[in-house]
């Protein structure tokens, strides 16, 4: 017969009471160890604040990067960057130089290359050294 006494009597029985205590202790250990059953995690206020701070720090990083000049940024890098910096400065000077000066420079280079062919002289030297002439 379904009655409150018939329902509660197995629970208050000594044997079943010890079982209930042991199972409850296990669940307590489970919770203390970090286990739980939950739904999908929603962003809490603490998590929201931390995410905002992370975004702010990332924005600061980007702003720092924007304020850095190309030369200063390259100066922070390793040794090979100095060569690029030097090349950049030379290119900047070359671009900034007047057009006539660049043309005269180019003409001078062409004249010097036409007068002397360093590869031919080297070839002659090699022939002389081998005794072919």
């Amino acid at each position, binding site marked *: 017969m379904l009655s409150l006494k018939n329902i509660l009597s197995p629970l208050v029985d000594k*044997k079943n009471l010890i079982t209930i205590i042991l199972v409850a202790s296990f669940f307590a250990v489970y919770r203390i160890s970090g286990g739980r059953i939950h739904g999908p995690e929603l962003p809490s206020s603490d998590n929201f604040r931390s995410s905002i701070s992370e975004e702010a720090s990332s924005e600061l990083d980007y702003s720092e990067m924007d304020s850095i000049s190309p030369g200063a940024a390259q100066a922070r890098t390793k040794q090979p960057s100095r060569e690029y910096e030097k090349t950049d400065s030379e290119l900047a000077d070359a671009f900034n130089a007047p057009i006539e000066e660049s043309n005269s420079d180019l003409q001078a280079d062409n004249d010097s290359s036409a007068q002397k062919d360093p590869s031919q002289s080297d070839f002659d030297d090699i022939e002389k050294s081998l005794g072919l002439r």
Partner: protein
Amino acid sequence: MSEQELIIRRVWRSQIGTIALYILLCFACISLSRTFPASVVDGLLFKISGLEVYLTLPLFSLLPLAALVTLCLPIYDGYMHVDSRGIELVLGILSLKQRITRIRFEDIRSIEIGQSILERLLDYGTIGVSSAATDSVELSFNGVGSPREIQDFLQSERDRRLRVAPKNIITEVAVGD
């Protein structure tokens, strides 16, 4: 004996070693889960109509769980049932294989008790009942509380049955040649 029935189960103090092991594993689970946070795994348990339920499981909690199952299984896996006709031992209630042994009071030849030193201190032991059919113990049930009282009770019931049972008088008829 009236129509009353007596159900005898294993007592919790017979599992004292397993209880100590369970307590030790509980403390070990807590300390190891905090020492190794990577042992706490998180995953989707099930999904019903869009509702997702996640489970965060410390892997070390499986150790006390196994000890708890080992602890509770003998208590609920079998019992000894004494009624007006005899003794019935049911084993394997929660197991795949169940065994039921019944012996009538009239067929009981001897009732044995087995207790170690710890079992004598905690007053629990093993009861063995042998019948006239076999030489060995036919019915054995360990972890029983107050085994000496149960032995005295069963012997008194057997003696009462033997006194009450009518004696069969065999009349020999001599057939003369």
